[in-house]
């Protein structure tokens, strides 16, 4: 709470760590409290993953950082209430990587990343050299150099995710919010993106707040995990303390086994709940038929 | 429009249903005279279907006119007493029984509501003619005449249809005499005077191929708009370029947009570049009544008189100065 608000970055690309805290935060949607009295503080420079079943209110909670209003309570950043900040000031403190970013048709990668400089620009007709330098540095850091003139539509999912991340980093904010950053990526790209975020956090002292579905991923990358259910925060702490089979059973209604590794990271394996019977006379195939070879299938003629 | 068109068959069906149910209708209604249409192109010398069967006793007494020109003709031949209702634009002569009926969007039901025995129209819009015929009403379709003989023919047709043959003949003779006298009053010129006839302030005009152009030709005037529609592709109603008009510099300018578009000699002179026009400088801008210059009835004589007077005045001033 004592961290100063970094209107000016400490050094290019590196910012002072900033705390984020919700106090009694509540959001109503259609008469329902989708976020219901959440108290959560995230200390500067740490990584917290918000977990919870669909509809628990995770995305709504992080959206309160991007200007979506609260119906009750407050959210503060670096000790200042978010409600007191202008949209521009807020965008200099918090960068958001949305789950489904809108990809403007025809836009080039460099121009898209440059949009991240918007909160630092005035009514300027062309981007300043400073803005271009920062943008270029971020693009280099995320290995987007080669792509800078390509359009976003022509990129693969993994590349596009890096570009959207680059735009958020170009904002030069101390807080980075990622809403389901790994949803559409294969396992390899999921890990690559999360490892990149981990590196960037270390380089820039970022406070990272992500929503997640994959408990194992959250359990391994986040410093702390916060579990929400029906709009309420039901647990917050180190992954090894929070992600227990009991909590997973209560919250998601599934049986799971958890393994804690030497660094305090948690992996979660979920078991199928019950066998669904097939139609009468048909049992589940447990062994391959003797006639078939398990190697390769002949192409049909 | 579309809706009205779709409704016509329904209305007709209902009307026919009503007729069929009326078993006890008096047998005096002669079926032979109804449902005849007089095409306007038929020259006056040829007797038409309608007039042949009309006898003095059967002269229509409940006429509805949806054509302002026809209304003027009917009153000029003394058939005004037989006219029951006229459309909203038939405001000449003043005693014409103006109603809300429209010749542009004719409503068969509204017309039938007057129980007419003759309906005169200038255009068959939305199949109104067949709708009226289905309702057993005699119609005369008289398209706008294309020349002065056409006007004479329509006057005589209306005379025969309404039992005023003699008056119609007299009117035509009287018009011819006046026109001849007016033409005779025009002095000979080596180079004819030029004119521009304005339909609206967007410089829409007429060529000599139109009815109105023909009247100006009678007065010996040359039309500057002819070059703008040489092949008649614009139907004789081209829109002129302002700079062409300034360059052509007509001797006479006739404004037929004093009512529609509130134009006047003063407003014409105030238009950009128009203060240079000879007609403006010489005061040869004639403000016409929009209606006189667009209704091809008995008042074409009045219109010609205005044109000839202006021409003679301009001609006299021209020879006086040169």
């Amino acid at each position: 709470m004592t961290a100063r608000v970094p209107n000016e970055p400490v050094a290019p690309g590196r910012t002072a760590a900033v705390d984020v805290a919700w106090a009694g935060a509540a959001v109503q949607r259609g008469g329902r409290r989708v976020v219901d009295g959440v108290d959560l503080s995230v200390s500067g420079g740490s990584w917290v993953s918000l977990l919870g079943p669909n509809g628990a209110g995770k995305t709504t909670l992080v959206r309160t950082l991007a200007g979506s209003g609260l119906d009750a309570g407050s959210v503060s950043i670096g000790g200042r209430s978010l409600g007191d900040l202008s949209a521009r000031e807020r965008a200099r403190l918090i960068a958001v990587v949305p789950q489904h970013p809108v990809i403007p048709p025809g836009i080039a990668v460099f121009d898209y990343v440059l949009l991240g400089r918007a909160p630092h620009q005035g009514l300027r007709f062309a981007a300043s050299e400073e803005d271009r330098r920062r943008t270029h540095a971020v693009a280099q850091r995320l290995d987007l150099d080669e792509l800078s003139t390509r359009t976003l539509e022509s990129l693969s999912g993994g590349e596009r995710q890096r570009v959207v991340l680059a735009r958020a980093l170009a904002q030069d904010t101390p807080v980075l919010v990622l809403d389901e950053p790994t949803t559409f990526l294969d396992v390899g790209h999921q890990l690559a993106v999360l490892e990149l975020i981990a590196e960037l956090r270390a380089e820039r002292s970022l406070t990272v707040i992500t929503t997640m579905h994959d408990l194992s991923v959250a359990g391994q990358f986040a410093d702390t995990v916060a579990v929400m259910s029906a709009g309420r925060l039901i647990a917050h702490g180190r992954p090894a303390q929070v992600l227990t089979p009991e909590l997973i059973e209560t919250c998601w209604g599934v049986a799971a086994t958890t393994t804690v590794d030497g660094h305090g990271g948690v992996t979660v394996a979920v078991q199928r709940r019950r066998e669904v019977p097939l139609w009468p006379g048909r049992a589940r195939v447990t062994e391959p038929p003797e006639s078939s070879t398990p190697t390769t299938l002949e192409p049909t003629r | 429009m579309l809706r009205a068109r779709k409704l016509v068959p329904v209305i007709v069906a209902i009307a026919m249903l009503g007729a069929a149910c009326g078993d006890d209708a008096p047998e005096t209604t002669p079926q032979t005279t109804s449902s005849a249409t007089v095409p306007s192109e038929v020259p006056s010398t040829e007797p038409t279907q309608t007039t042949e069967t009309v006898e003095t006793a059967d002269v229509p007494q409940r006429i509805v006119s949806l054509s302002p020109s026809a209304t003027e003709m009917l009153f000029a031949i003394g058939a005004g007493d037989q006219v029951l209702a006229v459309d909203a634009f038939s405001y000449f002569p003043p005693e014409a029984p103006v109603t809300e009926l429209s010749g542009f969007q004719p409503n068969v039901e509204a017309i039938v509501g007057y129980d007419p025995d003759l309906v005169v129209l200038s255009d068959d819009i939305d199949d109104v003619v067949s709708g009226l015929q289905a309702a057993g009403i005699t119609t005369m379709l008289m398209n706008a005449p294309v020349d002065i003989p056409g006007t004479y023919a329509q006057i005589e047709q209306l005379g025969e249809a309404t039992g005023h043959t003699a008056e119609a003949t007299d009117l035509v003779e009287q018009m011819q005499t006046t026109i001849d006298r007016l033409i005779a009053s025009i002095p000979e010129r080596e180079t004819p005077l030029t004119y521009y006839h304005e339909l609206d302030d967007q410089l829409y005009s007429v060529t000599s191929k139109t009815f109105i152009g023909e009247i100006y030709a009678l007065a010996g005037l040359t039309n500057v708009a002819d070059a703008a529609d040489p092949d008649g592709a614009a139907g004789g109603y081209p829109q002129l370029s302002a700079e062409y008009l300034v360059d052509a510099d007509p001797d006479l300018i006739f404004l037929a947009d004093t009512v529609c578009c509130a134009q006047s000699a003063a407003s014409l002179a105030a238009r950009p570049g128009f203060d240079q026009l000879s007609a403006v400088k010489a005061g040869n801008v004639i403000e016409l009544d929009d209606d006189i210059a667009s209704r091809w009835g008995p008042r074409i004589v009045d219109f010609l008189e205005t044109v000839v007077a202006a021409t003679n005045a301009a001609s006299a001033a021209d020879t006086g100065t040169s």
Partner: protein
Amino acid sequence: MGAVAVDEQGLRVALPRGTRLETGWLVGGIAAALGAVVLGLWLGPVSIPPGRVMLELLDRLPVIDIDSGLSVSDRAIVWDLRAPRVVLGLLVGGLLAGSGAAYQGVFRNPLADPYLLGIAAGAGLGATLAIVSGVGDGIGVVDPVPLAAFVGALVAVAAAGMLGTRRGRSGTASTLILAGVAVASFLTAVQTYVQQRHAESLRQVYSWLLGRLSTSGWGEVGLLAPYAVACVVVLTLSVGALDVLAVGDDEAASLGMRPRRVRLVVLGAASLGAAAAVAVSGLIGFVGLIVPHVVRRLTGVSHRQVIPLSFLFGGAFLVLTDIAARTVQAPAELPIGVITAFIGAPFFLLILRRGSEA
């Protein structure tokens, strides 16, 4: 321009520029506009030697006094008829295309044009009411029709804006479009009703709706100029905001923008310009829809290029089509809206095809 950055190997590399208004395109746009103006002054149904036209224009400059050798009526043609018409074409075409580009940007919809929120319908109703009521008949000096059209257009946009945006979370671009469509339909219905009730003015109403530059003088240029300046300045300053708005309201907000306010300012300026253009020229279609698309095809999607170049190429396009309008069937005029579609549609299809092949 010559900014450099250092890459990972410590080598100096050129810093990427990002999309900006390319000098080449800017020069091209200005050249197109100027070329169109010069052609517009030279060509017309009355042939006047180009050299003398230029001398005549020089003569009009302060201090300079040259005898162009033109007759009085030719001088009137050049200065009172052609010159204002060409300038008006430049302004109207530029405003329609520029505000069309702004509308497309704000709504992130390629089918948007300046008439989307009811400007055409509102102006049409305003003009029709002024024509049929004969307001100002005989006043002579102030023509009430453009004034009524201007007011009608602004009332329509304001109505659509108020109905389509509510305080709270529902003020999205699509509700605004729907409100605009509803307002436009309603006003068109009223306009048609009024027009049918006054069949005697039908011709004048139609003539107004068709659009024209044909009878314009310096008066119209004077009416339009202040709104043109306001529109051009505001839209040119909004290019960066429009680029940010391309990522949608939520993300634009997270980038420090207030999307609803940007939309209000940009739509306000674009509507003001388009309404003023429509007020003096009637409903000239196609320019506001097609020119921004062509510019985008040629230069890319950034509003830093699309907005200023739409102004320039839109103006040039309308001046050129107006030359066709008054020369193709000289000395008769063709309705300019017919020509914008007749020339514009095939040209646009060509650009589309070339774009999809590339």
